[in-house]
């Protein structure tokens, strides 16, 4: 996408300003988004994202800029503005570029640059819509969305790195709204992956519609949620968002290096119940959070974060490695050329255990079963987090009693890790978008159903 001689000229210029390290991140992405409403196509949108990110490193200082223009003079102008306060004699010389293409671990076939497959996607969304509406006449509205992206990147750096990669993402979602004339409630289901529209051979629009409608109907009949400290059983798949938010962000060197993570000095220590082992794996074939190489050009890895309760690794990007001394883990990620890379999660999950679901429920006198979790947020410095329960049930005397609505779980990462006492066998992954300092990146969360012995539940009852 960028001429090698031009990249060489610009990076050489960055080094001539006295930088220790210079990098160009070139991106051209195609996007296509289809949305449906009321069983009709509401919109089809498409776009071209194009830009070049410029990173200069002077000691521990990172300078970053970007532009939509490709002229060498514009790239040098940005470098000049960035380095204006740090100019010094050259420290290092440009290493000759040694091009290498990554091994393709995530093949995609029906990609956006070949065909947007609009008719096929519309048919999928309409089938999901029809399934949801067929579930009950209480389903009053549906929204469908199918988004596909083809991201092509090219990275050059002053250490001689020159590499390229292509990532193909697709995700289809249906939201159902149930209404009884007085109250409204929602349910949602989505599927996605790091592949092309061939995903339609793997997913079932009827299941998508049925599941979105089922959740909406459960929530429509839900009672107010009890509140207070109590045990909670958290469902598999997207339930893993609790580990992602409560612990995963605290293991990124982005916060570890600043000592803004409660785990920054806990390497090798027991930070979780011994029932907990957790992984961040960027290598899983065609998974939503996978990559071939990270956004700094390093081949990605499978990283064991916690083993039997003991902290075994952080998630480390190039800058984090320099600041903390830990080895890079291929975790340098960014949403686009508009962001400097930072250590970020990929497919992050608690490994399956051997507990039975019925044993978890029957062990609880009064608590909540959070079958589906929504989003949440965490404050890395203190580890305080919150999560929304989007499908929940009240447990009493060892039995699931009735659905509850509008509940939030709050605790801190260190506390909840030690409260996870049982982990089940029904492991699964779910996809989401994770927002942080380097933008929103695709990540998978996952776990088997697990039991937290005590957590604060915020409800209305």
């Amino acid at each position: 996408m960028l001429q090698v001689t031009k990249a060489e000229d610009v990076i050489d210029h960055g080094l001539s300003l006295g930088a220790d390290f210079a990098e160009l991140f070139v991106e051209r992405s195609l996007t296509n988004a289809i949305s449906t409403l009321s069983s009709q196509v509401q919109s089809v949108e498409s776009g071209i994202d194009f830009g070049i990110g410029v990173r200069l490193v002077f000691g521990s200082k990172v300078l970053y800029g970007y532009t939509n223009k490709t002229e060498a003079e514009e790239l040098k102008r940005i470098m000049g503005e960035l380095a204006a306060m740090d100019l010094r004699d050259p420290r290092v010389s440009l290493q000759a570029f040694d091009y290498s293409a990554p091994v393709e671990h995530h093949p995609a076939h029906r990609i956006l640059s070949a065909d947007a497959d609009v008719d096929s996607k519309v048919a999928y969304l309409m089938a999901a819509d029809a399934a949801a509406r067929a579930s009950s006449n209480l389903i009053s509205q549906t929204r469908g969305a199918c988004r596909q992206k083809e991201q092509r990147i090219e990275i050059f750096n002053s250490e001689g790195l020159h590499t390229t990669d292509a990532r193909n993402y697709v995700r289809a979602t249906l939201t159902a709204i149930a209404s009884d004339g007085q109250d409204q409630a929602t349910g949602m289901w989505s599927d996605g992956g790091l592949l092309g529209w061939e995903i339609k051979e793997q997913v079932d629009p009827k299941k998508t519609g049925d599941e979105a409608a089922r959740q909406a109907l459960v929530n429509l009949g839900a009672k107010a949620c009890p509140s207070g400290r109590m045990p909670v059983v958290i469902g598999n798949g997207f339930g893993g968002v609790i580990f992602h938010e409560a612990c995963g962000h605290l293991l990124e060197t982005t916060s570890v290096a600043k000592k803004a993570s409660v785990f920054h000095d806990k390497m090798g220590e027991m930070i979780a119940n011994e029932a907990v082992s957790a992984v961040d794996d960027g290598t899983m074939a065609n998974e939503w959070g996978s990559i071939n190489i990270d956004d700094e050009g390093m081949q990605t890895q499978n990283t064991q974060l916690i083993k039997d309760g003991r902290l075994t690794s952080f998630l480390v990007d190039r800058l984090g490695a320099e600041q903390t001394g830990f080895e890079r883990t291929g975790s340098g990620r960014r949403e686009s050329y508009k962001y400097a890379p930072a250590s970020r999660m990929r497919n992050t999950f608690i490994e399956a255990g051997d507990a039975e679901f019925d044993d978890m429920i029957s062990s609880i006198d009064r608590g909540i079963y959070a079958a589906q979790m929504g989003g949440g947020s965490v404050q890395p410095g203190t580890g305080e987090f919150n999560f929304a329960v989007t499908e929940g049930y009240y447990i009493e005397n060892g039995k699931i009693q009735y659905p509850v609505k509008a509940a939030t779980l709050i605790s801190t990462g260190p506390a909840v890790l030690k409260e996870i006492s049982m982990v089940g066998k029904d492991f699964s992954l779910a996809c989401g978008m994770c927002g942080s300092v380097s933008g929103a990146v695709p990540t998978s969360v996952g776990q088997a159903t697990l039991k937290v012995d005590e957590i604060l539940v915020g409800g209305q009852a």
Partner: protein
Amino acid sequence: MSIVSQAEQILDRVRAAGAEGDLIIDQGEALSLKAKDGALEEHKVTSSQVFGLRVIKDNRVGTAYSEAADGESLVALVDQALLNASYAAVEAHEKILANALKLETQDAQLSPIDQATVAEKIELALTIEARLAAKPMVKNVPYNGVQDSVGERRVYSTTGLEARSKARMMHCYAYALIESGDKNAMEGIGQAARRFVELDPDRLVDQAYQNTFDILQGAAIPSGKYDVIFDEEILPSLFNVFSMMFSGKSAKDGVNPMRDKLGEEIAGSKLTVRDLPLDTDGFGYALFDDEGTPAQALCLIKEGALSSLIHNSMTASYFNSVSTGHGTRGPRSTLGVGLHQLEIDAGTADDAALHAGAYLVVTDLTGLHSGANPISGEFSFGASGYLCRDGVRVQPVRGITVAGNFYELLKRIALIGSEQHWNWARSAKMPSIRFADLSVSG
């Protein structure tokens, strides 16, 4: 080729295809600085440009955008938007406005030339971090920064619209992480201004420190029903989360619970809510909306009764009404509606009445989007703040949740304070409101 010439070429191609269209061109430049341990941690210089096109042909709407500005990409922009339109359902209500207005904001007022140098801005970033880090018990200042951004939006249409707005915003922010024994806390604050000299680092540092120090020893309080006052930062956020209640677009889509309640009492009679886009003191100032309709003041709730929804030309046509100047469309998005800057009328309660007896002041809410359902009004948020009695803080409060239904909460307004406050981002101006009987879990 100039931006104007590129716009003309794009719209000529739209006309040649027998379609109508409007084009948004956003351009921006920004400087972002962050400090860590006495040195700059981030120094970011950016320039950006994006073209966003909407076309309407045979009553079908298509959109496309491009960040690439070469001739080939801009031709593809038009062709892609036309292709996308061919798939869309017929939408008889969405039109390109027959609007040939020439509109332009005043650069001297909204985007003043600033003489501050990059070196001065770097010095400010370093000063903020150093002064806050030097305060007692501050472990570090993990989030801080100084930003200077100028954004320019142009809107052109095949019917002759030429609208341009440009605005500058300088802001700084800082969050302190304080540790004492086994307690820790992180809080902060920001400031926004049009000119560098209007930023006040001493006040920022003092406020960020005080916010964090005061909450450090916070603890949960017993579960129960409490009277609650959301502070001037949190109250606008809460209204923002549930702003869909004013949306004509959501009403058209059948998901706005206020759709059929125009004229009905939906809130306590003390509440009057307005959108005031022409208030130049705020950063939500707008001369025109993204369709080019001149912006205007609008009363949304008048003494507790829903008096208007917000409309663009499409939703107005659907409801046989007129646009209220609240059309939103970014280069990458389709036509929607949005508020400019929300204001709530001051009430009559003085401080003594507002702060009588026991009540909870909420200074922070977490999970604002994940914990709220704008369709049903249900919410459950993590919260922190202060338990107060007769205007005096009794104890700092952390580790609690507040839960309820926002639309029911609007009917439980006990008192409205007599003084309005801007939030720090200057996007909303509201008085203190005391809500009765909110569920708190501790």
